[in-house]
């Protein structure tokens, strides 16, 4: 009794919770968690950065919802209202746009680092698949969110993007109608994209994210492939808590500052309101993460053999995407401890292809 009274409030709160939720088990787990320390440790932070930016997206997205109106006649005006009349509205919108782009960038870096470090190998195949799903969902978020301000650039980007989906054989036409809510991009499309962006995608994304994080917690951090035959004494680790966590927090702080600088000094433009009866403006561009595909389509001729150029382009990207997704499945060499250089060459080719075509997209007319 006496002893009990001497305990501080902190200790008593802890033991109250511990009796009910077995906190000590969690703490033991956190103590054991560690991150391999070697040349490539830096890449282990990027998943966390993407996670932080996703949280920023949720918070700023909810704030934008307080004023945004998703109809053909009021979408553009409501975003203008947010940017010009609402206190700090410009900042919230700018942060939402910048954070979206930085999130996709960090997710890309995260994916390529996992790919080159071959962390997708057994037993982490499902982590890779869910991660790939998250990246696709992030791009779907970007594509649907891009239309919401209902400006000219977004209008044509959506026309092109949905028309590409419509090129698919057999299922193309129904998908096109499902996405557009009709034959053409119209107010109906805006309503649907709004629904996808704020309800459907967040739901799917949350499930995938939960699975992705659970898998990582269950399996721990991936160790480099060549650690397999190394004696325990030579392996170095950083304790996840507090060392790695503190570093991650520091990086988050830096990312938030970068985000703030970008959002304040390069506020996101609104452009001119969409009009279904104007020509596509010269110099029209999609968001940068679609640029390499956009630029490839520009280079393809109208017809290749007996197929249309766009169909060949879309099919090629589709197949490449599926192969990329299935890499843990067809990479049979890495799990058995052999080097699989094809994986590296394919990855390097993908990176160079994306960089070159993206650059061309920005420097050519």
């Amino acid at each position, binding site marked *: 009794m006496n002893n009990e009274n001497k305990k501080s409030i902190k200790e008593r709160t802890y033991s109250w919770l511990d009796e009910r939720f077995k906190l000590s088990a969690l703490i033991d787990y956190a103590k054991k968690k560690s991150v391999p320390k070697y040349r490539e440790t830096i890449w282990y932070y990027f998943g966390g950065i993407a996670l932080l930016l996703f949280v920023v997206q949720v918070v700023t997205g909810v704030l934008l919802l307080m004023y945004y109106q998703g109809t053909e006649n009021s979408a553009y005006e409501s975003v203008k209202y947010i940017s010009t009349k609402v206190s700090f509205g410009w900042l919230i919108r700018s942060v939402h746009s910048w954070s979206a782009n930085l999130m996709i960038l960090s997710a890309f870096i995260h994916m390529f680092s996992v790919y080159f470090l071959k962390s997708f190998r057994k037993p982490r195949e499902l982590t890779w698949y869910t991660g790939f799903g998250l990246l696709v969902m992030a791009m779907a978020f970007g594509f649907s969110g891009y239309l919401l301000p209902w400006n000219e650039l977004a209008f*044509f980007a959506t*026309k*092109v993007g*949905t*028309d*590409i989906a419509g090129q698919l054989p057999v299922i193309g036409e*129904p998908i096109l*109608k*499902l996405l557009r*809510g*009709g034959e*053409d991009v119209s107010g*109906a499309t805006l309503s649907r994209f709004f629904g996808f962006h704020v309800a459907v995608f967040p739901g799917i994304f949350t499930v995938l994210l939960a699975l992705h994080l659970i898998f990582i917690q269950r399996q721990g951090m991936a160790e480099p492939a060549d650690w397999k035959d190394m004696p325990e004494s030579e392996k170095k680790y950083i304790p996840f808590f507090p060392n790695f966590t503190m570093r991650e927090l520091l990086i988050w702080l830096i990312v938030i500052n970068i985000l703030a600088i970008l959002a304040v000094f390069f506020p996101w433009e609104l452009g001119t309101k969409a009009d*279904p*009866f*104007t*020509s*596509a*403006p*010269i*110099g*029209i561009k999609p968001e940068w993460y679609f640029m390499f595909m*956009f630029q490839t*389509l*520009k280079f*393809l*001729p*109208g*017809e290749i053999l007996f197929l*249309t*150029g*766009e169909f060949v382009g879309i099919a090629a990207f589709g197949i490449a995407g599926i192969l990329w997704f299935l890499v843990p499945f067809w990479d049979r060499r890495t799990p058995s401890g052999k080097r699989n250089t094809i994986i590296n060459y394919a990855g390097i080719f993908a990176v160079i292809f994306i960089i070159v075509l993206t650059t061309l997209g920005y420097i050519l*007319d």
Partner: protein
Amino acid sequence: MNDSSDNEPVKTKRRDFLGLLLGGGFFAWIIALFYPVVKYLEPPEIEEAKVSNVKIGKVEDMAKDSGKIIKFGNKPVIVIREKTGEYVAFSAVCTHLDCIVQYRKDYGQIYCACHNGRYDLNGRNISGPPPAPLTPFEVKVVKEEVIVHEKEV
């Protein structure tokens, strides 16, 4: 023992039948559940007022060597007045990926900014990715008034 071995095939058959009934019933139930949702997502056909011609103004309203987009019902149509003063009109929807084309004076051609597609003033796709020519429209001048018609087949 004898009894049970006699009954066994009957029992299995009965069980199989019940399983099939249940499974089939469940499958039908799933379809009944999702059918309305799938149908709901399919946008209803909207009745459109049929437009057969659109007046776009006087002959001299448009400068020579220029183009503009007009509303033809709910479809965009590009009307071009050539250097010679002749009028031509085409569907403004690029045959590549659905963008809206424009008249470029500097090329003297119809141009799509989305993927650098080009058409000549007969609507033929001449360079870039467009796979087919633009659908032509007819332009008639009646009493100095320019009227765009749907081309008769």
